[in-house]
């Protein structure tokens, strides 16, 4: 308790030297009310930028006797406006009662063209018995012009044609004014750019003065991008200022091959005992040329499948090539459907395999032989009719 009493003394000393006497008199019997009254503000020195207003909180405290305290200002620079406010009204005096502090706001409004510097003025509080003053120091500084800064941590990213490029950028408001910043991106055709802040899609966001925000810029390609460099111009606009940065997406080409029949057909016919040419289309659906495509097949046992050509040295992106597969079904193959898997393997792409359904057809030769046999039988009957015919 002693300590807190001492603290009160120090506080009172520092805030209002004029009332040190009555405060010291209270030492040792803290329950004894003040004599007269005190007035102070917790933060007597404040700094503002040009064009800003400032509010000081004043506290009035009285000892044993309630009283009316009149307030006015001394040495207020010319052109400055200042008002006391209490309970939402503009006031000039306040009624202070014991054990209940009265709080008053002093609103100071320097003119717009105020010069930077330090301004002093004093708040005078006149009680019924005595009066007190609160010296106030206001430092007016030149306001920083609003400015924005947009920086990317890694402005150049590399990826595959279907990658979502994700750039981490920092948007900094370097001015002294809060801004609402709009984000605009100029992205290459076929891509979509989204801005994310805190996991949410944003297109505009408030950035307080001297605050910086992490913004993630995501570029998602709608379709696979061709190999090359893509530039994304990101523009951040807030008020009259803007900042921009250029992000680069380096798309590395990737080859992707597909195997199918002409028109995408995956069923073919093959005669037993014959070599049947089957057209196969190898297509590079990727964005980079595929090299050295090897064609292999895994047919059922006893089958022979040769490719012509066996190897494609190079297949440009988006191009296709027709290859002939010579399918020779096993001699024992029975009529009906068999599955033959055709695989294509390029140097730089994953192996692609496609199942072809080969319908094995048997030769019609034996059918013709059967018809021949029947014809022979008919001829024999005819001969018999000619030989034995009688009445």
């Amino acid at each position, binding site marked *: 308790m002693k300590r807190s009493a001492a603290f009160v003394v120090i506080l009172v000393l520092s805030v209002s030297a004029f009332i040190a006497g009555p405060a010291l008199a209270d030492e040792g019997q803290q329950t004894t009310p003040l004599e007269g009254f005190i007035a102070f503000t917790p933060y007597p020195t404040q700094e503002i930028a040009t064009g800003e207003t400032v509010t000081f909180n004043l506290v009035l405290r009285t000892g044993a006797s309630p009283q009316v305290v009149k307030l006015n200002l001394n040495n207020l620079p010319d052109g400055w406006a200042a008002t006391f406010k209490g309970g939402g009204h503009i006031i000039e005096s306040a009624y202070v009662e014991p054990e209940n502090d009265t709080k008053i706001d002093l609103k100071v409004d320097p003119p717009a063209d105020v010069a930077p510097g330090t301004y002093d003025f004093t708040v005078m509080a006149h009680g019924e018995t005595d009066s007190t003053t609160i010296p106030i120091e206001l430092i007016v500084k030149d306001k920083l012009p609003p400015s924005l800064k947009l920086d990317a941590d890694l402005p150049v990213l590399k990826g595959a044609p279907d990658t979502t490029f994700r750039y981490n950028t920092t948007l900094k408001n370097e001015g002294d004014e809060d801004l609402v910043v709009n984000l605009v991106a100029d992205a290459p055709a076929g891509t979509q750019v989204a801005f994310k802040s805190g996991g949410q899609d944003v297109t505009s966001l408030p950035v307080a003065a001297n605050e910086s925000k992490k913004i993630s810029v995501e570029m998602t390609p709608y379709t696979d991008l061709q190999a090359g460099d893509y530039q994304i111009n990101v523009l951040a606009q807030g008020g009259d200022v803007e900042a921009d940065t250029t992000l680069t997406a380096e798309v590395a080409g990737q080859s992707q091959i597909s195997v199918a029949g002409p028109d995408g057909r995956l069923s073919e016919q093959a005669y037993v005992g014959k070599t049947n040419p089957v057209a196969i289309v190898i297509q590079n659906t990727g964005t980079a040329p595929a090299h050295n495509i090897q064609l292999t097949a895994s*047919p*059922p*046992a*006893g*089958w022979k499948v040769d490719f012509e050509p066996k190897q494609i040295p190079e297949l440009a992106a988006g191009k296709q090539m027709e290859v002939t597969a010579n399918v020779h079904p*096993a001699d*024992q*193959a*029975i*009529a*009906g*459907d*068999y*599955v*033959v898997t055709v695989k294509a393997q390029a140097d730089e792409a994953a192996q692609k395999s496609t199942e072809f*359904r080969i*319908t094995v*057809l*048997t030769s*019609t030769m*034996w*059918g013709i032989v*059967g*018809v021949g*046999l*029947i014809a022979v*039988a*008919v*001829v*024999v*009957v*005819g*001969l*018999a*009719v*000619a*030989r*034995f*015919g*009688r*009445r």
Partner: protein
Amino acid sequence: MLSQLSSRTHVVREGSPWTGVWAVVGKEMADLLTSTRMLILELLILLTAFGTVYAAAQNLRDQTGEARFLFLKLFTTGQDPVPAFVSFLGFLVPLLAIALAFDSINGEFSQRTMSRVLAQPIYRDALLLGKFLAGLFTLALVLTTIWLLIMGLGILSLGVPPTGEEVARGLLFLLLTLCYGGVWLALAMVFSILFRQPATAALASIAVWLFFMVFWGITAQLLAQSLWPAQPSVPATILVQANREMVLNRLSPNTLYGEAMLALLNPSVRSLGLVLPMQLQGAVLGAPLPLSQSVLLIWPHLTGLIAAIILLFAVGYILFQRQEVRA
């Protein structure tokens, strides 16, 4: 063609063997279609058709959405205790064919009408061919009627129309059944030429039918086992024995009909012989065969049956030509 051939090779012959064939066919068919035994047999087959198809349709009704070849399944689906229609056909058709022909020639003799018929300007060729064709046409008439009946019942009970392939397969099945019946018709006719008593001819025909139906399978197995003994340690000999047994089995028209019917009515049947596991590697099981391939599969069976008809007819023809017809 026949007349051309005859005029070239045999100068003795006068007139065409075709003269009067259609007259004989007409009269004979009229006789056959009004006879009591035909009525009994037709009723029997009709009853079978109704019963089996009704049972099959009950069974198939739930599958109309997913199953393919529903109409073919009408023929092959049985529902306990009613067997499938085709298993009835296997013995009803021979019975019908034998009933149509067992007294075709010797009946004329026993009624003493042969010389009267031949006194008309009709060759013996024409008489025999006409009688055979009349039998075949009657058979075709009965079978077609039943076929249409089953298809109609199918549309009524399943509520979906048959597809083109189903109709094509069904018609081929009809043709096959006709050929199968034709073999028994020709056989019964040969016996009716050979034996003077109709009863003997009928018994002989039925004996042959029973032999093929019951005993030929056993005989083929025994023959194959004794002629080509299989050594359990040598797979090749087992294969040879199985193959030979199959060949022997196929000498029976019943086997030919059964196998061909299976391939026609069940499109997923890809082979009628022995299939080695090696041949099935990579095969898509259950995939239906195109119709042309199914036809190729059963072509030997069909030609075999047709050849048997022609052969039996030729035998009957020669026997009949050499016979004394004056009573």
